[in-house]
């Protein structure tokens, strides 16, 4: 504990109080910035996920039953910290043709760098890789087909398989399959 006997000690104490106040103010700014940043990131990632899903499942005119990312689900568990999980839209998530599905948008890292990879899970079809974003498309990526785990040249098929296994385990904790094979998001 500082003994305030000299004017120098008083000055130091004032400096310390000012430093702590500045730190608290900065923390408040960081908190607010991260809060609004998270909201913005969520909307952008959701839009990217919807775009990738539309490419993978075909446009609305071609397939009216294609799943779309809806409400974000916050999950705790392996691989979940940096993953954006969206329930596929449609009431209780079982009304649409694809059943109660989940979209996973995760930052995957491969030899070619980082890419936002999107996976789709439903109890009937299992885990499926839809595509990735964040890196320029190379000639062979342009030939990618939905569901092809060898796609996405920024990320190798081995890494995608690891993610699929990890996310399948995570999805099992979120989606409860009904007797008829359709899914329901457990709350």
């Amino acid at each position, binding site marked *: 504990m500082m003994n305030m006997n000299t004017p120098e000690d008083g*000055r*130091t104490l004032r*400096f*310390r109080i000012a*430093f702590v106040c500045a*730190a608290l103010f*900065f*923390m408040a*700014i*960081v908190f*607010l*910035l*991260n*809060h*609004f*940043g*998270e909201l*913005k*990131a969520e909307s*952008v*990632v959701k839009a*990217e996920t919807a775009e990738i899903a539309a490419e993978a499942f075909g446009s609305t005119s071609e397939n009216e039953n294609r799943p779309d990312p809806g409400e974000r689900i916050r999950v705790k568990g392996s691989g979940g910290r*940096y993953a*954006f999980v969206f329930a596929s839209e449609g009431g209780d998530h079982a009304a649409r043709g694809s059943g109660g599905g989940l979209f996973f948008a995760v*930052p995957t*890292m*491969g*030899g*070619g*760098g*980082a*890419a*936002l990879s999107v996976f789709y899970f439903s109890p009937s079809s299992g885990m499926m890789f839809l595509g990735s*974003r*964040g*890196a*320029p498309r*190379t*000639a062979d990526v342009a030939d990618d087909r939905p569901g092809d785990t060898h796609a996405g040249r*920024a990320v190798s098929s081995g890494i995608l398989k690891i993610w699929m296994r990890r996310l399948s385990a995570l999805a099992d904790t979120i989606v409860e399959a009904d007797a008829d094979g359709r899914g329901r998001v457990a709350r």
Partner: protein
Amino acid sequence: MKKHIFYFVMSVCPVFPALSLFSFGLVFVLEFCLFFLCLLGVRETIPHLRIKDGCVFLIEIPVLLLTSAFFVGFLKIVLPTPAVLLEFYLYVAPFSYMIFDSLVCSGGKSGAATNSDGYPPILTGFVFLSAFSLAREFLYYGTVSLPVFNEIIFTRVLPHGITVFTRFWGSFPGAMILTGMILALFNFIDVKSKNAPNAAS
């Protein structure tokens, strides 16, 4: 300068996988720039707080972590997708910066201050980060990317056919091998140039 490059490469190793695009490299340059300015400010303030030397780290590391949290929040608003992709590595960067800083200022002086050559040592790091990420993107994708608000724009500079041959050197393992070879070449030239006057005499 050569010594600083070696120190920088050693300390920034954990974020190498993320430096796949030039725009990602620029993001890290901006973050390190913020660290540099924050540490400069904190080190100006610390003498007024009369804190024991051993406890200075206890202030610097939280300040750097807060700075990286601030930067991630800011990046999520300005460039959401890269922020999501690089979030983990942006939080690793403060530790890399502290390692570089402690290696450079092993003589007791602040690494944030100018060195004997008259420039801050981290400038070497900025050049390295930009060059490394640019080379990786150029060799792997054949493009150059620049960050603009909300997205990244890509400009193709190499045709698809050529990148088939250069891709390995742009991938993470290839880039590491290439960096090692370039640093070894620098070292070799340096040793040769030092030995040349001795051999002549």
